[in-house]
């Protein structure tokens, strides 16, 4: 036993310390045998007293355990007694002024001391899986009139795990908060979705994010895809933002001191994501590593009585690109290239209603976002008329490209929701110059109708069935998507 080994060592050490002292003492030091006897006696005494202390302690600990048990069962019973309230009042009164600290300390000390991982960040894991059946191959996806980024396509056919996500977050210290979200993609690649720090004690309603984050533009953009009400991004999100715009940089927000919600934000970003392409590096000579993208947004919102609330906003995203490579359908990968600028304006509006504002039973959520974009610069393609097979660069002015989606989701009984969505995008015709290239819109307005029904097992688990009638390509496509999303670990945040 560890304790007895420890005791012997203790005895031996104290003897070693005691020995020279005894030899130095003038009396009784002559006879070695006497000394030995004395030593043995002392050792016995010492061990005996140690043993006594040990058994005493053991008894005391047992007694304390018993008392603790009794106290615990007593508190359970005692709370039924009327005088308990008075007792608790006395305790509270006895405690010094800052009540929260004392109360919190007395409740948690035991756990905190026992748990070395007490300062571990909160860990949340999201698993997302999809199964998709479609009439047309998602790998040949295109939205007529738009050069698309690599994420702008339906989920792969057949069963697949979507993005699995691990989120870690905690306060760094009294001044900072940090958040990391790592995404594991279907193809086993790992990407950092978000990695930012946030000051927690800025004055005047200011807050900031530094690092990688989803831009605050629009409504859906800042939310993680697994919290969306449909299994895929609306067409304008795919066409204009490659699904969702996340980037590295700095965000500054100011919340006005009004009762109505009113927030302003600006972002200076690297420009690493579509519709930009990392201009800080590509145009290093021109820009000296400055921001390749910037955004500004304003959001406002309020309650409408007890039952309803709304949120609306206006956002701008400006990006620059240099030789941004995209894939023409059926052509050489990366052979479409764009250099120039994108100015994207987004207006969003969200309305939520529940009887008496009680979202537990039924509720309605209406949501729409409208996009306008001006893309201009030069476009390089192998498919210009008359120059098929040779890379040709022509000046390109896309005019005003537009897009919007509108959707309604209704929880008709607890745990069951149904939703419909319509989305469309439109690129103005560019005439015969661009005929046959990716940017040729063929005078069309790509659109899609969707319907979904989902069932949640709790706020942590959800199954969804979605149908899309997708008319983004020349021929329309029927898509069925089955999705599950679960989250385990730390309680996730539910943004508005």
């Amino acid at each position, binding site marked *: 036993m560890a304790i007895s080994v420890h005791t012997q060592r203790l005895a031996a050490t104290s003897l070693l310390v005691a020995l020279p002292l005894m030899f130095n003492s003038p009396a009784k030091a002559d006879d070695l045998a006497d000394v030995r006897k004395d030593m043995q006696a002392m050792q016995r005494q010492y061990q005996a007293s140690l043993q006594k202390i040990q058994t005493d302690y053991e008894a005391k600990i047992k007694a304390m355990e018993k008392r603790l048990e009794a106290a615990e069962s007593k508190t359970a019973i005692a709370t039924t007694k009327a005088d308990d309230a008075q007792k608790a009042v006395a305790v509270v009164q006895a405690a010094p002024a800052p009540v929260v600290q004392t109360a919190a300390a007395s409740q948690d000390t035991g756990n905190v001391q026992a748990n070395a991982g007490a300062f571990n960040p909160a860990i949340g894991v999201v698993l997302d899986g999809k199964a998709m059946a479609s009439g047309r191959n998602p790998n040949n996806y295109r939205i007529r009139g738009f050069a698309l980024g690599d994420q702008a396509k339906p989920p792969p056919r057949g069963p697949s795990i979507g993005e699995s996500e691990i989120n870690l977050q905690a306060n760094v210290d009294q001044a900072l908060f940090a958040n990391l979200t790592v995404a594991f993609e279907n193809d086993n690649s790992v990407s950092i979705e978000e990695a930012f720090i946030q000051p927690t004690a800025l004055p005047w309603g200011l807050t900031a994010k530094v690092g990688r984050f989803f831009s605050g533009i629009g409504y859906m953009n800042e939310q993680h895809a697994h919290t969306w009400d449909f299994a895929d991004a609306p067409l304008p999100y795919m066409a204009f933002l490659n699904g969702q715009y996340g980037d590295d940089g700095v965000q500054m927000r100011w919340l006005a001191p009004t009762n109505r919600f009113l927030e302003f934000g600006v972002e200076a970003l690297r420009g690493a994501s579509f519709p930009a392409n990392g201009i800080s590096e590509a145009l290093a000579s021109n820009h000296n590593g400055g921001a390749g993208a910037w955004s500004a947004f304003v959001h406002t919102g309020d309650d409408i009585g007890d039952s309803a609330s709304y949120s609306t906003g206006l956002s701008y995203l400006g990006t620059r690109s240099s030789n941004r490579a995209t894939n023409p359908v059926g052509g050489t990968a990366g052979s479409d290239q764009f250099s120039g600028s994108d100015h994207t304006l987004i207006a969003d509006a969200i309305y939520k209603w529940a009887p008496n504002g009680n979202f*537990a039973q039924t509720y309605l959520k209406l949501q729409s976002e409208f996009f306008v974009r001006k893309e201009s610069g030069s476009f390089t393609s192998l498919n210009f008329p008359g120059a098929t097979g040779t890379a040709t660069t022509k000046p390109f002015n896309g005019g005003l490209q537009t897009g919007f989606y509108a959707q309604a989701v209704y929880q008709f009984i607890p*745990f069951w929701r149904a939703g419909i969505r319509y989305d469309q995008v439109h690129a103005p015709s560019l005439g015969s110059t661009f005929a046959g290239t990716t940017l040729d819109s063929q005078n069309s307005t790509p659109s899609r109708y969707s319907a979904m029904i989902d069932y949640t097992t*709790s706020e942590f688990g959800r199954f969804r069935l979605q149908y899309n009638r997708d008319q983004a390509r020349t021929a329309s496509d029927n898509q069925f998507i089955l999705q599950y999303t679960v989250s385990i670990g730390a309680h996730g945040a539910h943004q*508005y």
Partner: protein
Amino acid sequence: MYRSIIAIAALGIVSLATTQAEAALNVFTCEPEWAALTTVLGGSDVDVFTATTALQDPHQIQARPALISRLRNADIVVCTGAELEVGWMPVLLRQSSNAKVQPGAPGYFEASQQVTLLEKPERLDRADGDVHPAGNPHLQTDPRNMRIIAQALAKRLAVVDPAHADGYAQREQAFDARLGQTIEQLQTQAASLKGVKFVSYHKSWIYLANWLGMIEAANIEPKPGVPPGSAYIADLLGRIPALQARMIVYAAYEDPKPSQFIADKSGLPAVMLPFTVGGTDGAKDIISFYEDTVKRLLAAAGGKGG
């Protein structure tokens, strides 16, 4: 061009927004009972906002824009805590950019930190439903808890707003005396409820049961936060005679249908309780909230040969 559009839009929105700067202490309360309590303790020294009404399930509140702006302007937050608001308060606090009301600051007050919580789960597993690790958070249904919390809250208000410390202390003493009297009266009135068994929809009434000596015999929810299926309801109906329950209890914000259904099938009275201030017409403030609760329980017990 786009920049000027944004600037014009921003200006328009600013001029629409109402600016408010009251001298009174801005109090953000999560639930109506804390709004009522703060109003009693603060009088004209406080300006109280409530995030939820008595007809809303406090577990399921949207992180609405209005709540973010109210939090941003708050001097103190008064909530239940014990993870009752875990689905919405952390997001709001993060978005509010208000250091004064973050957890740990004097401007952050949790009622659950002031009293002993019951039903602290022995194991933490979401397979057990919506479990609260710190214990059952529905602590406002016991007026003795309210008395302790009132005292702590008055002290806290004085810490945040020292200029009006005397007012908080005086109003707290007056309130304590009134509530103490009410408790004694109600306990006398409710003596016949001692030992009375009831079935409740959600585990919302353990503190009330504890106070009045009543016994929660079963829940209509098979697990906290999980609505009952037909098989579970059939099973519960089969068990009810043996449970010897005298009434079905549900909260004002809960769907009455499952409770009414069980009541009809079992012949027991179903009684809706206010659960918080404003849950019923009778529950106008803290005192009448307890009075109305006891009145309704007595009526239900009396109606069934009590």
